[in-house]
C-alpha cells in the first residue's frame, strides 16, 4: 500500500517538475537552456507521445512484453537539488585512489562540502560504502570518487566493501555495520527488492543510508542519488531517429528486470515508438557481459543479413557487439552497403576511442563519478540528525549529460559533445 502511494507521489512530483520545465525549454533557445532541463523536456514529450500510443507495432510489442510502462512511471525525473546548474567543464581533477587513473569528476560542486573536518570536528565519523564489482571499471571509478571525497575530510573514516553481486552478502555487510554502530552507510544496490529490508534495518538503528545510482525498495532510505537512465535511452533513440528514419535493430540488453535495462531500453523504445520504419530483429539479454554480447551478436550476424542497428544498454555490450561485427567482417553490411550503427551507453575511455575512430556512432554518458555525491549526502544526513545542518533532499537527481558523437551535432535541441570535449571518461586508456 505504502509502495503504491510512494510511486504516485514520485510520479506526481516528477510530472510537476517536468511540466514546469517544459514550457521554458520550448520558449527559449535550446542552447541557452541547461542540458538537464532540455533533456527532461524531451523525456516528457516522448513519454507523453508513447503513452498516447505507439504506431510502430514491433516496438510496441517489445515495450508491452517486458512491462516497461510500470518501470518508467516509477522512475523519478526532475530538477537538480539546490537549483544546481551543471555545465560541461565543471568539476575537480584528481588521481583515483583505487584505479590510480587520472579522473575528472563532473559533479564535485553539486551539494558541495568544504575541504577539512566535517560536522563536529572533535568526532570521528565512520562511513561504510558497500557495492558490487571491484573489478569492473565503472564500479571502481564509483568507489574512487567516494574515497576521494572521504579523504578530503580528516575526521571521516571510510570502509569500502565489495559484495560481489551477492545481494544477500550486501545485506550481511550492512548488518555488520549496524552491529559496529557506523555513522552512515552508502550503497550501490544491484537489484531493488532484496536491498530494502537491510536498509530499513539500518534506518531503524538510526544510521542514515544513501543509495547511489540504482534504487532500493526501502521507503525510509535517507536519500537516493539517482542516475540518469532515462536520459541515456532517450538519447539513443533520438540519435537513431536523427540518423536514419528506418532500420532493423538487434538488442543487447542487461539482465531482465534490472533498472538499467528497463529504463534505458524503455526510454529508447518510447523515443522510436512512433516512427514506423524500425523493426526489432532480435532481443538478447547479455547481462553486462562482453563475451555474451559478442556471442549473441555473432549468432545474430548469421541469422540476419539486414541488420542496420545494434542497440546496447551498456558499454561492455557495445564493445562485444563491435568485436563480433568486426570478426564477421560485417561492419558495412547494413542494407545499401551502409555501416551497422552501434548505439552505446557508458562513457568508458575504450568506448570513446571507438567513437573517435567512427566504429561506434554515439554513446550516452553514464558516469560512475557520483560516489562523492553519496558521501556528501550521507554526511549532511548525519549532521541533520545532530541538528548541525539541514538534510539534503530525499531524491537527488544527477544532471542529465548530453550524448557524445564523433562530430558535433544538434539533435532536437541537444548539443552533442565530441570525445575531445569530454574529459570525464572513466576506465583505463587503450594503448595502440
Amino acid at each position, binding site marked *: 500500500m505504502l509502495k503504491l502511494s510512494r510511486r504516485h507521489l514520485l510520479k506526481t512530483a516528477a510530472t510537476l517538475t517536468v511540466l514546469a520545465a517544459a514550457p521554458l525549454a520550448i520558449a527559449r533557445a535550446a542552447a541557452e537552456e541547461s542540458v538537464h532541463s532540455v533533456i527532461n523536456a524531451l523525456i516528457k514529450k516522448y513519454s507523453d507521445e508513447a503513452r498516447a500510443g505507439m504506431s510502430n507495432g514491433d516496438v510496441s510489442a517489445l515495450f508491452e512484453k517486458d512491462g516497461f510502462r510500470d518501470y518508467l512511471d516509477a522512475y523519478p525525473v526532475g530538477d537538480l537539488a539546490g537549483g544546481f546548474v551543471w555545465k560541461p567543464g565543471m568539476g575537480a581533477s584528481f588521481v583515483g585512489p*583505487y*584505479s*590510480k*587513473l587520472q579522473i575528472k569528476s563532473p559533479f564535485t560542486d553539486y551539494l558541495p562540502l568544504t575541504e577539512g573536518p566535517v560536522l563536529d570536528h572533535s568526532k570521528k565519523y565512520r562511513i561504510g560504502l558497500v557495492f558490487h*564489482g*571491484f*573489478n*569492473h*571499471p565503472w564500479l*571502481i571509478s564509483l568507489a574512487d570518487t567516494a574515497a576521494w571525497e572521504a579523504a578530503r575530510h580528516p575526521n571521516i573514516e571510510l570502509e569500502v566493501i565489495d559484495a560481489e553481486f551477492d545481494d544477500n552478502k550486501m545485506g550481511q555487510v550492512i548488518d555488520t555495520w549496524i552491529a559496529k554502530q557506523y555513522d552512515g552507510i552508502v550503497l550501490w544496490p544491484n537489484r531493488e527488492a532484496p536491498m530494502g529490508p537491510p536498509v530499513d534495518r539500518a534506518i531503524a538503528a538510526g544510521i542514515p543510508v544513501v543509495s547511489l545510482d540504482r534504487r532500493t525498495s526501502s521507503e525510509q532510505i535517507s536519500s537516493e542519488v539517482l542516475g540518469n537512465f532515462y536520459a541515456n535511452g532517450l538519447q539513443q533513440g533520438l540519435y537513431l531517429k536523427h540518423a536514419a528514419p528506418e532500420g532493423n535493430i538487434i538488442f543487447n540488453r542487461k539482465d*531482465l528486470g534490472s533498472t538499467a535495462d528497463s529504463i534505458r531500453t524503455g526510454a529508447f523504445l518510447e523515443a522510436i515508438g512512433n516512427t514506423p520504419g524500425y523493426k526489432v*530483429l*532480435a*532481443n*538478447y*539479454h*547479455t*547481462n553486462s*557481459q*562482453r*563475451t*555474451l554480447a*559478442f*556471442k*549473441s551478436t*555473432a*549468432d*545474430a*550476424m*548469421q*541469422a540476419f*543479413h539486414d541488420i542496420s542497428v545494434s542497440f546496447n544498454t551498456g558499454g561492455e555490450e557495445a*564493445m*562485444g557487439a563491435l*568485436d563480433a561485427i568486426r*570478426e*564477421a567482417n560485417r561492419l558495412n553490411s547494413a542494407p545499401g552497403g551502409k555501416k551497422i550503427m552501434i548505439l552505446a551507453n557508458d562513457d568508458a575511455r*575504450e568506448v570513446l576511442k571507438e567513437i573517435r575512430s567512427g566504429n561506434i556512432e554515439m554513446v550516452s554518458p553514464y558516469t560512475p563519478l557520483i560516489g562523492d555525491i553519496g558521501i556528501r549526502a550521507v554526511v549532511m544526513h548525519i549532521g541533520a540528525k545532530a541538528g548541525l545542518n539541514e538534510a539534503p533532499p530525499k531524491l537527488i537527481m544527477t544532471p542529465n549529460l548530453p550524448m557524445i558523437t564523433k562530430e558535433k551535432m544538434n539533435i532536437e535541441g541537444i548539443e552533442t559533445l565530441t570525445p575531445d570535449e569530454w574529459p570525464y571518461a572513466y*576506465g*583505463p586508456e*587503450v*594503448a*595502440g
Partner: protein
Amino acid sequence: MTEKVGEHVMTMSTLETQVASQARPPDAWRHLSVSETSRVAVLIALLIAGQAITPSFLSLANIHVILLAVAAIGIMAYGMTLVVITGEIDLSIAGIAILSCIAGGLMIPTGSAALVIGTTLLTGLAIGLINGILVAALGIPSLITTLGMLGISRALANIFSGGQALYPEPIAAYLWLGRGDLVGIPLPVVLLVVLGAAAIALTKYSIFGRALYATGGNVKAAALSGINVVGVRAVVFAISGACAALAGMLESARLSYINPAGFEGMELSVLAVTVLGGASLSGGSGSITGTVVAALIIGIVNNLLNQLGVSIYLQQVVTAAVILAVVMPGMWQRGIAK
C-alpha cells in the same frame, strides 16, 4: 565425417569397457557412462534440424562462428577430460584462466609477445601443477583443492590487476592468437583441432594414455602394476591448467580485453561438456572424441537458439533438456543398479 566420429567413439567405448572390467567396482560418483550413440544421434539431428530451420546454418560463415564459440570451452574440456579420466575433477579452470591472463597481461608494457604469452601459459601450467601436487601427493580431494584454488586464483587476479581490465592491443602476436587465421581457418579453431588430435593420440595411442585410464579405473591396482600414479595425476592437472590458460588467452585476444571478472561459472559449463562427452566422474572412462562431439552439441544448440531469438533464460532450460536427452538413454544399455 560424423560417422567416423561415431566409429572413434565406439572404439573408445570398447577400450573403456576393457579397462573398466579390470578395475574395481567404482565407488563415489559412480554412474553409467553416457550413451555414445545417442550423443552422435543428437548431433546429427541437430545438424539436420539446424539446416531445416535456418538455411544459412551450414554456411561456412556460421560454421566458423560455431567453431569459434566452441574453441575455448573445447580446449578447456580437453584438459578436464584428462583430469576426469583419472577420477579427479578440476573446478579451478576459470580461475586459472583469468589469473594466467592477468599475469601475462602485466607483461604487456614490456612489449614482448614471448614474455606475455609465455607468462600466461607458464602461470597456468604452474597453478595446475600445484593442484596436482596437492591432490596426488598430499591426498587432498581434488574437488576441494580446485574449489579452493578457484577462489585463490580469482582473488589473486583481482589483487594483481587492482581489479582493472588490461588491453593487449599493443601485442600483435597475442591478438593474432584470437583473431588471426591459417589458410582461412581461424587460429582458435586450428588450435582446437591440433590440440584435439594431440589429446586423442595421447589418450589412445600412448603409454601415458593407458596409465591414465588405469589410474582412474583403480589407483591401487595401477600403482601395484608399476604406474607412477602420483606423477600421472600431477601431469593431468598441469595440462588442465595450461589448457585453461591457453583458452583464456584465446578469448582475451579475440576481444583484445583481459577482464579480471571474466569466465564466471565457466568451470561448470566445461564439466557439463566433459561429462556429456561420456567421461565418468568416478574415473577410468571418457574420451576426447566424445568431448568434442559434446562441445559441438552445446555450441550448436546455443547458436541455433540465438539465431531463433530464444531468450537466454529459456536457453538455459533448453540446454538442460538437451543434456538430459543425450544422457537418459544410457539407462537402457546397462542394467546394473548401483
